[in-house]
């Protein structure tokens, strides 16, 4: 698979878990990058685009909401597929994220297999 994937989570353990799930879904490990917060994610995307972002919400420096708001205003990031992988369950906030183009949502706690299946489905659709 040639998809470029960015995993954004402040937890190194979650990033490792997500990386493993994405590789099991068929991703090329060399095309997976990681960021520890939204600011780092924007910096990473400015250096090299991605196709899919797996995004935590509750992070220091710049949280997932701020990242989505920022990327929605950036024409260079059009077409980015974003999945929230988060403890967030507030309906109002999730609706706002959907309005800004977020198309995937996986609520923690999730089984690693669920993340693999979500990413595998997106690979098939692409």
């Amino acid at each position, binding site marked *: 698979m040639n998809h470029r994937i960015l995993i954004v989570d402040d937890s190194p353990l979650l990033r490792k878990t997500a990386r493993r799930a994405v590789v099991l879904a068929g991703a090329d490990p060399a095309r997976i990058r990681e960021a520890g917060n939204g600011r780092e994610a924007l910096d990473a995307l400015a250096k090299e685009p991605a196709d899919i972002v797996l995004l935590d919400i*509750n992070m220091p420096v710049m949280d997932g909401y701020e990242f989505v708001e920022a990327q929605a205003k950036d024409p260079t990031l059009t077409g980015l597929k974003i999945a929230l992988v988060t*403890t*967030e*369950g507030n*309906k109002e906030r999730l609706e706002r994220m959907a309005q800004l183009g977020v198309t995937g949502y996986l609520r923690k*706690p*999730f*089984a*690693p297999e669920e993340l693999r299946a979500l990413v595998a489905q997106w690979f098939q659709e692409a």
Partner: protein
Amino acid sequence: MNAFAIDSFAGIASHALERMAFVIAEPSGEAPETALAECVAQATIGLRGLGQHVLTVAATPGMVREFASGMLGVDADEVDVAEHAQAAVGELANVLAGELVMLATAGDAPASLGIPNATSAEEAARQLAVASTSGFCVVLRSDLGKLLVLVS
């Protein structure tokens, strides 16, 4: 929280461990002070919008090993407890705080979580004292270890 809600939360915490890392854990009648004394890492997270509460998670080496091995897909013997302990309790604090918010609000209220922070055994003991009088404590036991969850 009433006794029913505490039982529900203990069940939710057990379910989270199983879903995330295939850890089967059940509530233990063990004194939280005893469990805390065996823990190697502690994390706290603030909950806003439900009043001001703090959720604290502490884990023994065996729990860290079991949880990280399940998440990473490696044998428990391969897990470096020192490397993964803080990340494990931090993530569990984040997830369990989210579950507590959902239990209380069903997603309809604008409650929010802080960022999980590493904390000392002494601070965890202080949170335990508060939780024992005006919150609640849950001790879960798995095959390899124990997890302590405090809400104060």
